[in-house]
């Protein structure tokens, strides 16, 4: 274990970072450590343990706004929201099960820093779409704030959004203000059974292009469908489409969607409670969470290209895979403890991006975890990093090699 500093408030975070910068020390930023094995392997001198920055500081349901210290557990936030029938609409996924840890341990800061968005991403938006304001400490050791607590705000650069998905490499967030939304009263899932990937892609496109307001669309080839509790007995590939809203609306749209999709194949359905369990399983990548540590890739691409890309990687590696985000998100598990980065990136051919989410330390050391950038963007990324953290104090090398 390396040395750890555990600040109690934002000022202490600023002191720790200013001191590290002055001493050319590199810090690993950690909340509750649930995603420590994700990202490039880094060399740091000291752990900056932010878990002391916890607690909801403001929640006004009628204003749709919630503020919390960065290391507040998501479970605590979700509990508070539930009491007012609200939720984090971006449906942050929980990497716990996939990475061999307990579920429900992650913090809001971790979810934002990693840009975690679940199946509802395609309708409600990404984690960053819910970032209204932030207070953070840059690598300069300065506490700065950006954004605000209101939804409509174009005052200055949208740094709160930028910090989402920046993996703690730009600033240590200390306080986060989020937009929250009402929870749907009811939900249901329409299933289409036995489709090929290409046909499923078409079905998802038709559903998303309809006025049925589909809030999630996934396709599981038979192999993966068999690993999901709610689909096990079907024994077929399953294409799933979620509808959420008030009961009258869900019932009406379900009828409409079934009409629209009848000609594509045999239909099935999941009721509200089965739907909730099923989409949580999709969100948390349960088909690949069986306790093994085989490499798992996450690919974001143009939805209609996904079947071809998946087939290409499958042919080269024998990987198992399933689709979320109407095809725009591909989850792949490799058959052995080799990430086979070459095969993945060759098939993707720059048409989106691939991230190595789970892999052993040695595998991560031998592969680029994030999609490599072209020279112009790489240089701009380095300048952006330096604008926040000129001494390279914060999570150096977590996304890209140090320049």
């Amino acid at each position, binding site marked *: 274990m390396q040395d750890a500093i555990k600040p109690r408030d934002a000022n202490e975070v600023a002191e720790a970072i200013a001191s590290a910068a002055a001493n050319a020390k590199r810090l690993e930023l950690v909340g509750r450590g649930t995603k420590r094995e994700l990202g490039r392997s880094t060399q740091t001198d000291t752990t900056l343990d932010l878990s002391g920055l916890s607690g909801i500081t403001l929640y006004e349901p009628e204003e749709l706004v919630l503020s919390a210290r960065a290391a507040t557990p998501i479970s605590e936030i979700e509990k508070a929201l539930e009491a007012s029938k609200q939720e984090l609409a971006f449906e942050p996924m929980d990497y716990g099960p996939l990475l061999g840890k307990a579920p429900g341990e992650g913090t809001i800061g971790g979810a934002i820093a990693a840009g975690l968005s679940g199946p509802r991403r395609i309708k409600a938006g990404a984690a960053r779409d819910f970032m209204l304001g932030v207070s953070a400490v840059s690598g300069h050791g300065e506490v700065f704030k950006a954004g605000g607590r209101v939804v*409509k705000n174009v005052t200055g*650069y949208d740094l709160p959004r930028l910090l989402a998905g920046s993996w703690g490499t730009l600033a240590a967030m200390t306080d986060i203000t989020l937009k929250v939304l009402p929870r749907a009263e009811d939900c249901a899932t329409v299933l289409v059974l036995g489709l090929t990937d290409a046909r499923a892609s078409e079905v998802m496109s038709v559903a998303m292009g309809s006025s049925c307001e589909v809030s999630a669309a996934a396709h599981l080839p038979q192999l993966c469908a068999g690993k999901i509790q709610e689909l096990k007995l079907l024994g077929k590939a399953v294409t799933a489409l979620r509808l959420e809203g*008030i009961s009258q609306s869900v019932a009406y749209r379900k009828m409409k969607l079934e009409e629209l999709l009848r000609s594509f194949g045999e239909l099935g359905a999941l009721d509200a409670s089965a739907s909730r369990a099923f989409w949580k399983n999709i969100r948390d990548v349960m088909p690949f969470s069986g306790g093994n540590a085989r490499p798992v890739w996450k690919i974001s691409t143009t939805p209609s290209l996904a079947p071809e890309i998946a087939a290409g990687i499958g042919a080269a590696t024998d990987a198992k895979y399933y689709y979320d985000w109407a095809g725009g998100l591909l989850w792949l598990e490799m058959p052995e403890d080799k990430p086979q980065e070459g095969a993945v990136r060759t098939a993707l051919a720059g048409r989106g*991006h691939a991230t190595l989410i789970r892999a052993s330390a040695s595998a991560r050391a031998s592969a680029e975890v994030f999609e490599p950038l072209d020279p112009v963007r790489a240089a701009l990324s380095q300048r952006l990093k330096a*604008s926040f953290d000129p001494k390279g104090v914060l999570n150096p090398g977590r996304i890209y090699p140090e320049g």
Partner: protein
Amino acid sequence: MVAMPAPDKAVLDRREKIVAALREIVPGEGVIANDIAMRPYESDGLTAYRQLPMVVVLPETTAQVSKILSYCYENGIKVVPRGAGTSLSGGALPLADGVLLGLGKFNKVLEIDYANRAVVAQPGVTNLGITKAVEGKGFYYAPDPSSQIACTIGGNVAENSGGVHCLKYGLTTNNVLGVEMVLITGEIVRFGGKHLDAEGYDFLSIIIGSEGLLGVVTEVTVRILKKPETARALLVGFPTSEAAGDCVARIIGAGIIPGGMEMMDKPAIHASEAFVKAGYPLDVEALLIVELDGPEAEVDHLIERVSGIAKDCGSSTLRISNNEEERLKFWAGRKAAFPAVGRISPDYYCMDGTIPRAKLPLVLSKMREFSEKYGLLVANVFHAGDGNLHPLILYDANKEGELQRAEDFGNDILRLCVEVGGVLTGEHGVGVEKRDLMPAMFNKIDLDQQLRVKCAFDDKGLLNPGKVFPELHRCAEMGRMHVHGGKTAFPDLPRF
């Protein structure tokens, strides 16, 4: 009035050479250098500010934009990008020693991809032009700023434009998937595409709403949505603005997110009614338009629930649209509110603060005090769902001192917005107009961090200088570290 940076005499002395160099890049009529022909470019939607540029250039290709910017970068020449010039904050106000780079010729929709629900367009395509291109198949582009007939998608990207439907459907930033952009160095770079989320840092987050200070966007990919099956609206009058505000809070508290929720105060109601005769009640203090969209079964149910909430909140009049014609009539008055106010006053100054909704009664009552203090009338239209307030200050520019009084009045309102927990601008941008108010919301450290981001893109400070940031800094100064108050846990450590 806000002062612009002093023109660089050395650049102005080289004007002929610069114009000739630009003509090498963009042949024919694409370079405009005479004063009369440049006149249409001297101002944008913030007409109180006018300045002729040094030269106007209207490129047609990304390669030309790249060459222009690279030339300007090498020669230390400032550049002001411009779309349709509808900015209400002076974002496209020219500089006397700057090149005005107009993107008006980039006016083509390049690709419509229904399978992936995306449209790729050049930045000069109008906001409404995108919807027009796809409405035949029942799709639309969601953000709908009221200038949507004229404003361009490139300008929307620069300003992160909103509209009346953004509570439910988001702002520009929530609906753009990717851009092609030219950096000030002339380098061409792409961020995003038809896939979701970024590889590495999410540059789109800061490019959208960057007001032309980070680069010049030459292509935009947006997501399109299927039109809702139906939409109906309620028109509800209240005896007090408190009751109307309470109604808004209770609708949202009940878990209902309307497609649009707009409020008008008495002066705005009267001006609109006199102009378009939408049938608005004149004996109310506040009027609420609530629009619900989606499947018919859902809309009918929610109309009932919202009606019940409105009655509980003490509404004095309540009408529900029964057909499309009635719904549009409800909106007609609201949509015409700005020109309606323009009819009753020689000039008006449109403000754009956002506040936490619960503070509305307080802000309105303070605004009445300011109105007396400055001796100017104010009418309010309000995107009630998301707290975005548009006070319209009535003045006459031909009367000595009135413009200054209107600006001071406006500044008081914006400072008040920040005091109650809101922000300076909800959708119009900082531009020139609110530049010097930035310190009301951000301290030096906050602003320095934003300036450092600017420097990562534009190390010579050539892109749209004089906008957004109250002070110009050399980027070299921005990299330094500061120590505050001398209070640190390790006082003996060397600092610099």
